């Protein structure tokens, strides 16, 4: 009996100490990790989507408490809004939205032209899709199919009656990207005032 008790106590103590240490390190490196993610993953995608603007969207980023569309928790979460300006006027905003793909959530940077209310382009950030199949959502050919889509209709792949060419053999991944874009449109519509007010030039 004593032996069992000792085993339980020692193992529990070690795991507890380990948990404390990890929580500390996680907290301590949080901001720095976010910065690196912005620099190496989100940054290039945002810059590509908003190519042609006259400012540095990465430096002008605004953090906004928003309720993402379709989020049933009802809790607002912090979202980064990247503004792009042309001729001293707001031209477009970009932000990240995610939806489930084949292997996990797909993060999509969605750039929206605020005057025309249409899609400028998308960029893929984090995903766990199959290399060679679903991972091809990163390819320019697929992403270009989204440019110019209006906010009116639903964003869907051709098989579902939409206008987007799905990647053959990777319909689920393609659908995931479409879903993320639709969610981004809904979120933008529902929070339009707040978003536009936050990025006034």
């Amino acid at each position, binding site marked *: 009996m004593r032996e069992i008790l000792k*085993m339980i106590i020692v193992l529990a103590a070690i795991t507890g100490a380990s948990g404390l*240490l990890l929580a500390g390190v996680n907290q301590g*490196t949080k901001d720095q*990790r976010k910065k*690196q993610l912005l620099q190496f993953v989100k940054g290039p995608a945002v810059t590509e989507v908003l190519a042609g603007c006259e400012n540095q969207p990465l430096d002008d980023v605004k953090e906004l408490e928003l309720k993402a569309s379709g989020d049933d928790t009802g809790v607002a979460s912090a979202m980064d809004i990247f503004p792009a300006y042309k001729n001293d006027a707001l031209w477009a905003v970009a932000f990240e939205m995610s939806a489930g793909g084949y292997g996990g959530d797909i993060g999509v940077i969605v750039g929206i032209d605020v005057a025309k209310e249409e899609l400028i382009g998308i960029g893929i950030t984090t995903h766990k899709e199959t290399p060679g199949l679903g991972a091809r959502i990163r390819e320019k050919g697929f992403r270009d199919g989204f440019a110019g889509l209006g906010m009116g209709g639903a964003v869907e792949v051709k098989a579902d009656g939409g206008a987007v060419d799905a990647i053959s053999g990777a319909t689920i991944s393609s659908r995931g990207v479409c879903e993320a874009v639709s969610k981004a449109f809904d979120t933008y519509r529902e929070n339009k005032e707040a978003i536009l007010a936050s990025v006034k030039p």
Partner: protein
Amino acid sequence: MEGSLVQEFKKGLWEEIPPFRLVLGLCPVLAVTKAADTGLGMGIAATFVLVLSNVIVSMLRNVIPNKVRIACYIVVIATFVVVTELVMQAYTYPLYEALGIFIPLIVVNCIILGRAEAFAGKNPVLLSAADGLGIGLGFTLSLTFLGSLREIFGAGTLFGQAVMGASFEPFTFMVQAPGAFVCLGILLGLMNIVEAIRTR
């Protein structure tokens, strides 16, 4: 049990140099030595985990009950691996991306569990630290060497700098998986020859 610090440190550099003499931890060795810098990064990450886990395991060696020792070792090792992962993610993101899944897999690297079980669980703290540092340094040297070799022949560069001149035609076979096996095999053979001559 009686060994000097220097001796414990030195054995990791030749006599028990992983992966060439211990032939342990081959999975990351084959996978991350496409280039010298990833090999070096992986080596440093593994050394960090190895030294710290050896120290902690050695400190706790009289407290940990024998029956749950492996579970305790794994918890200690896994903790330091996650710390390494978070720190790399925060400060060396490109390297973290390049090493990918092989960072979390340090948890199951048999060199580290092997040293905890075979050495740190039975020896005092300082000796265990020296053992961890020696083996870790040996691992780093091997990985960097193997990585350099494959990078020089496979891509004509070393740490990203061109070294072979413009007329060199890269030998892409070397940076692919079969090249890793061939390289490792040749190095193992060479080390056995050297060892045979030394002990004759």
